[in-house]
């Protein structure tokens, strides 16, 4: 399982909450380095749960997960933190810290790494300008609109040029122009080597960008390729 160029590998992974039924069963998955996937499925299909396994927020009820060739069954807390620093996450509900400014929210991943403040200022200013939030840098995120919060969340996810970018409905709260611009950012990051997984309901985005689709259905994971509209039944393993 370890020692290949897969960013994430899952084997027979199942997840359940408390004593309830399994949300996801027997998930097998391998995401190669530099790949780009959409994650789809109906509401409640388990997209957020699958993403949370990928960004190491929870452990599976069963099965094995390997992230950056680290088997999570044998990874301690310090190592988990180091792995998380290589992952950028955009949450559906943003997960911003409301009492901090847009600048401080975006600077967070750099600060936890102990980066020099001068370099942080340079990078964050540049990125917030790019997502057209340069006039809101000092505004608390609680005062921003949904679309602005979305852009702050995306800027925070990509500020440290992650190896893996996970986004849950990243364009759900922005207009088409901004959505196109953000997708372009994800594509550019992917070209630079970042592995990207985007959970979305938007057919437009899926159709506009010819990337494989991980589809969650009946607690299982299926993969569709752009050229093939049928369920391949197999998985990218």
């Amino acid at each position: 399982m370890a020692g290949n160029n897969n960013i994430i590998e899952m084997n027979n992974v199942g997840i359940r909450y408390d004593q309830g039924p399994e949300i996801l069963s027997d998930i097998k998955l391998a995401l190669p380095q530099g790949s780009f996937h959409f994650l789809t499925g109906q509401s409640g299909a388990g997209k957020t749960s699958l993403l949370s396994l990928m960004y190491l927020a929870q452990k599976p009820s069963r099965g094995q997960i390997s992230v950056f060739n680290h088997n999570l069954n044998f990874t301690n807390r310090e190592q988990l933190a180091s792995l998380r620093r290589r992952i950028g996450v955009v949450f559906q509900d943003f997960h911003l810290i409301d009492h901090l400014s847009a600048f401080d929210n975006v600077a967070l991943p750099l600060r936890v790494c102990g980066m020099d403040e001068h370099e942080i200022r340079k990078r964050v200013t540049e990125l917030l300008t790019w997502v057209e939030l340069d006039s809101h840098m000092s505004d608390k995120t609680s005062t921003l609109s949904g679309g602005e919060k979305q852009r702050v969340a995306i800027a925070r996810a990509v500020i440290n040029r992650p190896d893996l970018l996970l986004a849950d409905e990243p364009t759900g709260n922005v207009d088409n122009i901004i959505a196109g611009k953000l997708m372009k950012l994800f594509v550019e990051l992917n070209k630079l080597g970042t592995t990207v997984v985007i959970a979305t309901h938007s057919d437009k985005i899926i159709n506009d960008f010819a990337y494989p689709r991980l589809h969650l259905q009946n607690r299982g994971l299926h993969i569709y390729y752009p050229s093939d509209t049928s369920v391949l039944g197999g998985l990218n393993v």
Partner: protein
Amino acid sequence: MSNSSYISRKQELPLRGENTSLFLQVIISIAVFIFAITLSGVLSIDSMIDNWNKSILGSLTVQIIPTNDTDKEKSRAETLAYQEKAVDFLKSVNGVIKVTPLSDDQLTELLSPWLGDEVNISDLPTPRLIDVKISPDADIDFSQLAKDLAVASPQASLDNHKLWLNKLIAFADGLNLIASTVLLLVAAITSGAIFYTTQMSLGLHHNIIEILHIIGAKDTYVAQQYAKRMAFLGFMGGAIGLFFAVPSIFFIGNLALEIEGGIISDAELGFTDWSIILALPLFSMLISMLTAYYTVKKTLKKML
């Protein structure tokens, strides 16, 4: 956009605005106040015991009980003879430096507070006293010495000051033990308050901590923010407690000085004692900081 407002970095955890901060500061102030008063008591008792020990170190007194004879002159002569035997014996003991029988004038002076200046002690069956100086290095078995002295001079009895002072010292030691227990309890209660307040705060800021973890913050990153805040509260609380404690210590000290008899006046706080007391805010800062730091580390370990 203001040019610099976004540059001034804010702590991710809004610990400064917490309602529990004032509560904790009051608790620490009271704890340091009690701690300082009790500590000054402990240190005073220590210095008192030390002064008592110094005052009796290297000396003992031998008492010659007057013989019971109706003839005063005969009785006095016999008593003096016993005194001389005792002096001779004491001079022969290893470790004895000087043996000085007290003269009539000295005995009169000693008794004058009780019998007045006009009393002729040769008319009274008063005991004779011998002041004995012993070398600080002398290894004397006082029980054996008392027995040997009684053989050499049957009317002589040894009064080792240490024997009666030991009871007083044991009492003072008991007080010291109680005070030390109070110190430990105060420290434990303060640490407990910090522990529970920190745990409460961790629960309150669970969402922010979760965000910090997801972006790769280690437990130490969160623990340092708590430690920094608690260090501030610990120091400020300590300073306020000390501000009220110092005048109280002086007040109690003055009350003690007014007690006649000189026993309590031997209790005094030296430079080192005051340095320890004045350093209490630093001590409370350290306790608060370490308690918060390890509470956070321990609590976060339970999270993924």
